[in-house]
């Protein structure tokens, strides 16, 4: 499906997270990044973060610690916040198709 077609079929909850996390695809990430996070183009570093978060979520059912994200992708801590202006939880995890984490986020 083209991003435009993906865009018209996505169902989001009240906070812009995917209503059905299992329906995530890389095209979905592109659309969420653009329309929810204002990230026009996802670069290699974005994808490194997204792919790690997605893989971790599929295995463990939750978002990874930011330490694991940094250590497994080689990204520097401060870089994450530049890549995803809404931060790791409401930016990176949202684009990676995770449900909203519990707690103060």
């Amino acid at each position, binding site marked *: 499906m083209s991003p*435009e077609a993906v865009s*018209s079929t996505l169902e989001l909850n009240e906070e812009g997270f995917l209503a059905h996390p299992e329906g995530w695809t890389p095209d979905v990430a592109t659309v969420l990044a653009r329309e929810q996070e204002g990230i026009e183009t996802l670069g290699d570093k974005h994808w490194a973060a997204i792919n790690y978060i997605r893989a971790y979520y599929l295995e463990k059912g939750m978002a990874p*610690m930011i*330490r694991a994200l940094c250590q497994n992708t080689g990204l520097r801590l401060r870089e994450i916040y530049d890549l995803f202006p809404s*931060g790791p939880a409401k930016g990176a995890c949202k684009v990676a198709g995770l449900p*909203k984490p*519990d707690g103060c*986020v």
Partner: protein
Amino acid sequence: MSTGIPLTPAPAPPAPDAYRRRLASLEPETVARARAAFAALLTRDHAVHLDACVHCGLCTTSCHYALVDEDPRNSPAYKVHLVAEAFRQESSAWARMFPGWTGARPVDAELIGEWVDVLFGRCSMCGRCTANCVVGIDVPALVRAARGALAAAGLVPPELQSTVDAAVNTGNNMSITHDDWIGTIEWLEDELRAEVGDDTARLPLDECDADFLYVLNPREPKFYPLSIVAAGAIFHRAGVRWTLARDYFDVTNYGLFSGSPEAAATIARRLVDTTRRLRAKQLVLGECGHGFAANRWLAPEWLGEEPGFEVRSVVDVVADLIRDGRIELDPSRIPNLVTLHDPCNLVRNGGVIAPQREILARAVTQWVEMAPHGYQNYCCGGGGGQLSMTRFARRRLEAGRIKADQIRATGARIVAAPCHNCVDQLSEIGKEYALGIEVKTMCELVADALVRRP
């Protein structure tokens, strides 16, 4: 969403999930449990406030929910009304005899549905209504009692309940494992050393007899660890003896928001016991509004005992360190205009009002108050567990418009907020209302202003 266009929005009302389906067909035993719990939860204060309310409705214009949406259900008076109806039924034989005349109503499936929508979905328990009430009715306490009745019946919105359950079952509200916590602190110690340029800088774990045990919000190790580095840098420069705990590090207590005194006591007990175990002189609470109200003011009530040590906000501690000359700040490092958000549970309901202002006066070049501020501040909209309840997120963001308007009127580029929960909501409304602001905790600002050593 402000940017958003072609995405299909969630249908309104949202598709019935398991929770909604459960509310729509409550078993009589569940209703009976909520009713019994409500009667048992009512204290002297609740009873006095409920009989003092004259139903004048003048609180309406003091509530951020009611200010953005005139639906009567948003008024604090309506919230009190829903609790008062059940209270009359419970407390007065006369009212039970003439329910239609007196406005008495049993806790039943219909009232429970309204409690969920109104008391969970339209209130951040900020207490601004109380401050402006003719009488001083403690609306947040009344809302908490009704929420507690629902908690006893297992009827708390699941996103909020899961946050409470995570804390009760794993020791912190984000289910961070012991290895992840320790690993993160060790990793951050390297960040700290790079930050302060000193290889002896430490993030101490489980050191006994320290000046204080420092507890923080799990979102820091999980997603926003720079605030831990910031606190570590401040404590290192000041040369204080402090420690983190290896086991219980979570300052939050969502039992305050689910209303369950049992969950609240279980969570509060751990910090008291950990402080005693480590023989720390003080328990210092990281920047968290409700964590302050819970651990400083309410924990002794839940636990039935006084802690026997001082419980303070880190904001208060850092203000002392600055006043005593133990850290040196260079305000020119933060040239942009700063404004200050007052977290309800730290300020209006907590009494910590001056220290954050002392800090700003020394740490930044220029700062302005919002109008109104201090005791009369508006809630950011994220309190009362709202941030965790996705099903009510639209209302939360709309109610946040009041705070957004306040921030915009200051012209500030940086919003200082001594509460991680507020930081998250303020960041969201910054995006929603295109405020172009950066939101920082007090410790982050102070760390930014620390005089660099060659």
